[in-house]
């Protein structure tokens, strides 16, 4: 055992090394385990964007970026290890990428003064910046997603008296939209049926038989992992109209629809960022990253939904760094400055166009009170013949009148339980 300990100490020493001036972005990726198919493109996109910044612009504001990748396998305990091993290197912002790791890091990172950006996942009520000073979940969260789906359906026709079924992963994540959908059902007069699917979701016959019997007009899905592929397949099997089947953004990648083949055509999914590779930035990535042999992955994921999401996360982080640099007038920023930068972040149409990502996401701004942004969500649809997702609606408002009270209630309960003084 002693031998091992010395090797370990040695390793730790060597890993620590001399610190150069750089901007460290840990990437808690999951390229292995049950959800690897979703984790690989995200991690690739996140890393490739920073590589692009280094290669093309020499970093952000002249300071090179460094992505510290740590494999979590979507496992909370490995996430703890990853957090502890990367935070000492001056990590600026964490993308925990799993509900479990996010919850687990919220108090820790807050105590350490490091920001967390849980983009479209994690604790929804973290949008309340008064309670969650170091946690950001802009541009959209699960409740925005639920409301966005309902808004989209209402734009297609009146929902009164219609039946909406929610098929969800029976976990904290899957249960997120229930309260929002219930409130909205009281407001708009649709019937809500809840259909939980137990982890992992390999077998969903009962659930889809129930849907077939009860004939809901619309099905909304909060699924994850193998559950998505099986659900899309089963929906196709019972000939549910794919046009009326809407997934949350974690149920809307190529992985989820490809196994079902042509029958998945018309399936819809929410999103908060652009899809496809029809943006100028991809030419730069091809030139500076892929052709230079510096791509994080095999390079075959570029332009997929989850790759774009990783890229979008990296873009938002880089923009927050720029904001922080201009606020504090210092180029080599600290985690605390990064937090300020994220809080003052403003994404506009011009900014995105300047980055080669015109219309890639909604324009929004973050404030001290609101860490969640305006909650603009768009809708995408799958074209099985062309094997592409396409955006079929604008990034539009969700019903904050319903969501804001829920956010306040949940965050205040958290604040009371943990004796947190409201900031701002």
């Amino acid at each position, binding site marked *: 055992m002693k031998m091992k300990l010395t090797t370990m100490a040695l390793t730790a020493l060597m890993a620590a090394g001399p610190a150069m001036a750089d901007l460290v972005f840990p990437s808690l990726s999951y*390229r*292995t*385990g*049950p959800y*690897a*198919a979703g984790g*690989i493109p995200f991690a690739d996109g996140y890393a490739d964007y920073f590589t692009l910044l280094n290669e093309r612009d020499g970093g952000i504001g002249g300071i090179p970026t460094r992505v510290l990748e740590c494999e979590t396998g979507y496992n909370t305990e490995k996430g703890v290890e990853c957090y502890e091993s990367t935070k000492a290197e001056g990590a600026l912002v964490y993308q925990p990428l799993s509900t479990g790791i996010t919850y687990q890091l919220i108090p820790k990172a807050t105590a350490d003064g490091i920001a967390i950006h849980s983009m479209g996942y994690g604790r929804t009520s973290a949008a309340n910046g008064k309670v969650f000073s170091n946690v950001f979940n802009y541009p959209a969260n699960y409740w925005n997603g639920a409301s966005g789906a309902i808004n989209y359906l209402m734009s297609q026709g009146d929902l009164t008296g219609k039946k909406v079924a929610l098929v969800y992963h*029976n976990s904290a994540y899957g249960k997120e939209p229930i309260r929002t959908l219930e409130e909205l059902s009281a407001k708009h007069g649709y019937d809500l049926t*809840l*259909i*939980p*699917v*137990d*982890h*992992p979701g*390999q*077998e969903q*016959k*009962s659930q889809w*038989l*129930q849907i*077939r*019997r009860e004939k809901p007009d619309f099905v909304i899905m909060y699924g994850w*992992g*193998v559950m998505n*592929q*099986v659900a899309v*397949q089963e929906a*196709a*099997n*019972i*000939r549910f109209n794919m046009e009326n089947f809407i997934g949350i953004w974690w149920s809307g990648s190529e*992985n989820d629809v*490809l*196994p079902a*083949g042509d*029958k998945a055509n018309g399936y819809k999914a929410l999103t908060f960022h652009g899809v496809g590779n029809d943006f100028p930035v991809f030419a730069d990535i091809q030139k500076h990253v892929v052709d230079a*042999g510096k791509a994080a992955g*095999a390079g*075959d994921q570029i332009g997929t939904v989850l790759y774009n999401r990783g890229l979008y996360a990296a873009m938002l982080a880089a923009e927050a760094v720029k904001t922080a640099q201009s606020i504090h007038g210092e180029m080599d920023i600290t985690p605390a400055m990064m937090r300020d930068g994220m809080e003052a972040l403003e994404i506009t149409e011009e900014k995105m166009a300047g980055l080669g990502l015109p219309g890639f996401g909604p324009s929004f701004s973050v404030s001290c009170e609101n860490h969640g942004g305006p909650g603009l969500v768009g809708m995408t649809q799958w074209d099985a013949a062309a094997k592409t997702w396409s955006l079929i609606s604008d990034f539009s408002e969700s019903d904050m009148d319903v969501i804001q009270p829920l956010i306040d209630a949940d965050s205040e309960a958290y604040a009371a339980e943990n004796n947190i003084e409201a900031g701002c």
Partner: protein
Amino acid sequence: MPEQLVFAMEVFLNGLMAGVLYALVALGFVLIFKASGIFNYAQGVMALFSALTLVGIMEGQVPFSHIINAVFGTEIHHFGWHVPALLAILITMAVMVLFAWIVQRYIFRHLVGQEPIILFMATIGLAYFLEGVGDLMWGSEIKKLDVGLPQGINDWIDLTTYNIFDYGFFIDNLDIVATVIAALLVAALVIFSQYSKEGRAMRAVADDHQAALSVGVSLNFIWIMVWSVAGFVALVAGIMWGTKSGVQFSLSLIALKALPVLMLGGFTSIPGAIVGGLIIGVGEKLFEFAIGPMVGGATENWFAYVLALIFLVFRPQGLFGEKIIERV
């Protein structure tokens, strides 16, 4: 006929079909346990591995391409050919036989005569190993598996039942195919073990290792054979489940669906696996249908185990297991 009853019938039929799929996985466990007393935790991973191999061969993927590219800086992924499904299945079977030989030669030959729990542990090590190797060989993205099996609602049943009950039943074509294949597989296994020389030897080994050894049965050969057959069963299960969800890591979790089946049917009985699978399939689906909505749904996972537990309290060796005779 009241509506609920018609629905229950539909659920019942689908439960039977799901049960067949569970039984397919359980069958692999039973074969190995019967012949060698090993509770093979790796059966689920074997299903994953065989399905991965099948897809890899069909698509002409280069094994270990990820690591080769990482080490040598090359960019190879595909051989550029497509192998027809049937040929690919045969090649995969050959791979599973090779796997069986390796397992027997390098692991279980050294563990003959150990306690069951230690053999069980070895299969856990094997499961880890195989999972890692599978990922390294073929990558961890989701792969579409299409060996030409039909999928989707069966129109004939839909129409016929609609004419009778005014409500068309949903039966998945894939499930029907799975049932036929499972029936053929079980029939083949029964014929093989009853009438062929190797099959009789296998049963002899299952009854008594030493007695079989003394009349000249090669234990080594039998065990390799049993692992090969289990590998083949895993491949069939992998194809069935993989067609539905794409081939991915979660395929290895189907083993968890097979455990209550095993427990209910008995670890040592092939008919037990089938009957157990049917009971579990029907039981959990009907419970979810009738009681599920009252308690909030998603009951299937635990109900299967509770059902098996209730059966076991009355028959501790499972429905068809060998009677446990205890002597001091």
